[in-house]
C-alpha cells in the first residue's frame, strides 16, 4: 500500500523533495518506514540512523499501526530548534 511520507530539513534536501511515496505493508512500524526510505534513497542512510518517525504527528518507536489508523507519516531528523 502506498503512503505519503513527509520529509524535513537535511532529509528533504538530500532527496530534493519534502514528501515521497513509499510502499509499506501492514502492520506499519517506524522501522518499516525507515527501511523503505533507505531502500529507495540509499544516500539518506547515515542521516536516517538518527531520525525519528512520527505517525499522526506523534513520535513512535516500536508501536504497530493498522494502515487504516495511519493518516500522516513523517521522518524527523534530529531537531535543533531554540
Amino acid at each position, binding site marked *: 500500500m502506498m503512503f505519503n511520507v*513527509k520529509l*524535513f*530539513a*537535511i532529509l528533504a534536501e538530500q532527496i530534493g523533495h519534502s514528501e515521497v511515496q513509499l510502499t509499506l505493508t501492514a502492520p506499519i512500524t517506524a522501522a518499516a518506514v525507515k527501511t523503505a526510505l533507505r531502500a529507495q534513497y540509499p544516500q539518506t542512510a*547515515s*542521516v536516517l540512523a*538518527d531520525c525519528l518517525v*512520527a505517525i499522526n*504527528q*506523534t*513520535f513512535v518507536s516500536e508501536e504497530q499501526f493498522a494502515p487504516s489508523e495511519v493518516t500522516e507519516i*513523517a521522518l*524527523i*531528523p*534530529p*531537531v*535543533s*530548534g*531554540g
Partner: protein
Amino acid sequence: MHYVAIAAQPLDVQALYEKLKAPEFGGIVTFVGTVRQWTDEIETQSLEYTAYTEMALKEMTKLAVAIEAKGANVVIVHRVGQLELTDEAVFVGVAAAHRGEAFKWCEYLIDTVKKQVPIWKKEFDTDKIRWGGLNDV
C-alpha cells in the same frame, strides 16, 4: 491561558511578555534565544529555521498545558524563516505565583523544546553551511 505559535515574522517580545501577566502570578521569567555570532571558532552569518508546523504546535501545546496545570501562564513561540544576528529565534515565558517555580519551569520548557519539538536550524557560517543537531560531517 497558554499561547503557542510558529511565527514567520519577527517576534514581538513586548506583546508576548504582556500575555503572561496576571494578578495571581507575581513572578515572570522569560527566555529569549537570539542568533549568536560565534560558537567557538565558527562564525555564523545567518540561520534558517524550518518546522513541521502542525506537529510542532501540538508538542508545544502539550508542554504548555502540562506546566499551566501546575499553576502558571505559559507562552512558547518559535520563529521560522531567515534570521540575522541578534534576531529572536525563540521566546519561552512562564508566569507563576513565585519566582523559583517560574525559573524552573521556564528552563525546563526551553530545554524540552530544544529536544523534542520538530524544528530545524540550517546555519550559514562563514566557512560552510551546517545543519543543527547533526554531527559536523
